[in-house]
């Protein structure tokens, strides 16, 4: 199974590099904990003043925070680090090292997606799951199996959508090398920390249909609290698949652009 042995090799090398670069487990742990504490504190401060936020009670909102942490963790596990090497600070596309990437006899999109891993993100994943567990116990109503299933499906759709969005933003670099499009995306992604329906209508439409950052955390959280209708779930899956193909197409176009002008 070539893709899997290749990924194994990428993980191995990433771990070695992390150790060599003196990446500190304890500092990463601290960062993860601080991130968690700040996110939860914000929710608690809010819910001292209100009991529900546009229909979301404390448990549901905490559930959404958990989803945000899980999705961010999966992004931080390999999607984020890999694409940052391509188009982040010190980017390959700018330095020209992308040439080497293009010379490898493997699918370029696969390569730039899976090549760098940050295993410490598993910490954030664990913390996110803790938050969800906490949210569920606090809501005092167990989550039926069907809702777990929907949660799983929408979570996968969310990660796929996140990947597609990040890939699309990254691809823009081929037309404007040096500009940090992924940092712009990072800023926009902050908006996913809260349910999308708290935003004013215009912004809500932007975050649902144009740059579906809102869908990424809101829909799985809805599934978890049993408020996700079937067609919502279907839309989430459809959007994820559509965005994946659109982003992949944009990426290929970007490579063709690089192939026609890099000197």
């Amino acid at each position, binding site marked *: 199974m070539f893709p899997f042995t290749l990924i194994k*090799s990428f993980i191995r090398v990433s771990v070695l*590099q992390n150790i060599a670069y003196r990446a500190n487990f304890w500092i990463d742990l601290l960062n993860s904990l601080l991130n968690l504490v700040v996110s939860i504190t914000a929710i608690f401060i809010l819910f001292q003043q209100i009991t529900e936020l546009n229909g979301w009670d404390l448990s549901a909102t905490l559930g959404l925070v958990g989803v945000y942490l899980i999705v961010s963790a999966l992004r931080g596990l390999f999607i984020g680090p890999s694409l940052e090497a391509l188009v982040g600070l010190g980017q390959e596309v700018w330095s020209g090292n992308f*040439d*080497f990437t293009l*010379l490898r*006899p*493997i699918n370029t999109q696969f390569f730039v997606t899976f090549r760098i891993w940050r295993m410490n993100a598993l910490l954030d994943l664990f913390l996110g799951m803790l938050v969800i567990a906490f949210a569920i116990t606090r809501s005092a109503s167990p989550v039926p199996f069907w809702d777990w299933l929907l949660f799983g499906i929408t979570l996968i759709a969310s990660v796929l959508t996140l990947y597609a969005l990040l890939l699309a933003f990254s691809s823009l670099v081929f037309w404007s090398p040096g500009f940090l499009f992924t940092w712009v995306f990072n800023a926009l992604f902050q908006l996913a920390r809260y349910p999308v329906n708290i935003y004013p209508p215009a912004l809500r439409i932007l975050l649902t249909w144009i740059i579906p950052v809102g869908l990424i955390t809101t829909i799985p959280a809805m599934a978890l609290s049993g408020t996700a209708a079937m067609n919502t779930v279907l839309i989430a899956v459809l959007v994820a698949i559509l965005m994946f193909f659109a982003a992949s197409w944009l990426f290929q176009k970007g490579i063709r652009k690089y*192939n*026609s002008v*890099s000197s």
Partner: protein
Amino acid sequence: MNEKIIDVQNLSKTYRVPQRDPGIKAALNQFVSAKFQDVVAVNHVSFEVTAGEIVALIGPNGAGKTTTLKVLTGLLQPTGGSIMVAGHTPGKREHAFLRVISMVLGNKSQMLWDIPALDTFHVLGEIYQIEKIEVKQRIEELSLMLEMEDILKKPVRNLSLGERMKCELVASLLHRPQVLFLDEPTLGLDISIQNRLRSFIIQYNQRYQATIMLTSHYMADIERLCSRVLLIHHGELIYDGALNKLSEQLSNSKLIRVTVSEPLADIDAKEWSSFGAEILEQNHQNFTLRVEKTQAPACTAMLLNRYVVVDLVVENPPLEAVIDRIYQEGAV
């Protein structure tokens, strides 16, 4: 094996470069009506390379060498012409094609920085789907040829430039490519390492019949390694052939080195300029004249007449000087 491994016919590459005047007004104008300029980087270049050759691609900066190399490796799409490398069209970037070529870029590194070179080699082994045992054997063989066994386990960032270049070479040869492209491989290296690398390239070429195409600004590289030279200038191929004939063919001058029996007072330049001769240097009993090719015999006769000549040699200008003049004057 006289098969053609590289066949380039009428390769052209034109870039459309946005034309922009400085200033804010012009920048805004750019959105309304963008102006472009066509820059011809490569202009109808044709050549063929047979398997196992070591060929040099030389020319001044901006002549189109790197563009040509990038087209041959599929990194750049040509604007016109047909290209065949190892039986494939590079522009299609098929995996089968990418498996049989390789590239070393003198000023860029494909090594992972913080970890030992061995780890990069292992990942490359996975990427090129080479059996683990094979990878091990090839690393051993190549590092033996390059005398670098002791640096394999050091983090790449701790290596000297020369040691790193050895790693780049190993990395590029692990999958035994049929064609190896070297873009300024000896850039910035000290003489002993340069020699080491040149010996290695010759050795490798003899052992595996790999076709090698290299660009370099070091004449020593070209002279030692390449039987054949492609000279590109202003995007055009102005010479394709043996190195030792280049000077003869491209230059229309000859150098006459004269040694006379008695020290001379200053030679009168005007006296010789009627032959179109230029005095290049003058030192006690020796002097050198540059003469237009056709005037050389007549000039030689004059010299033999005029002076008591101890030694006289008529030769082609040194390669470097010829190429230098071409680079500078743009003409031949």
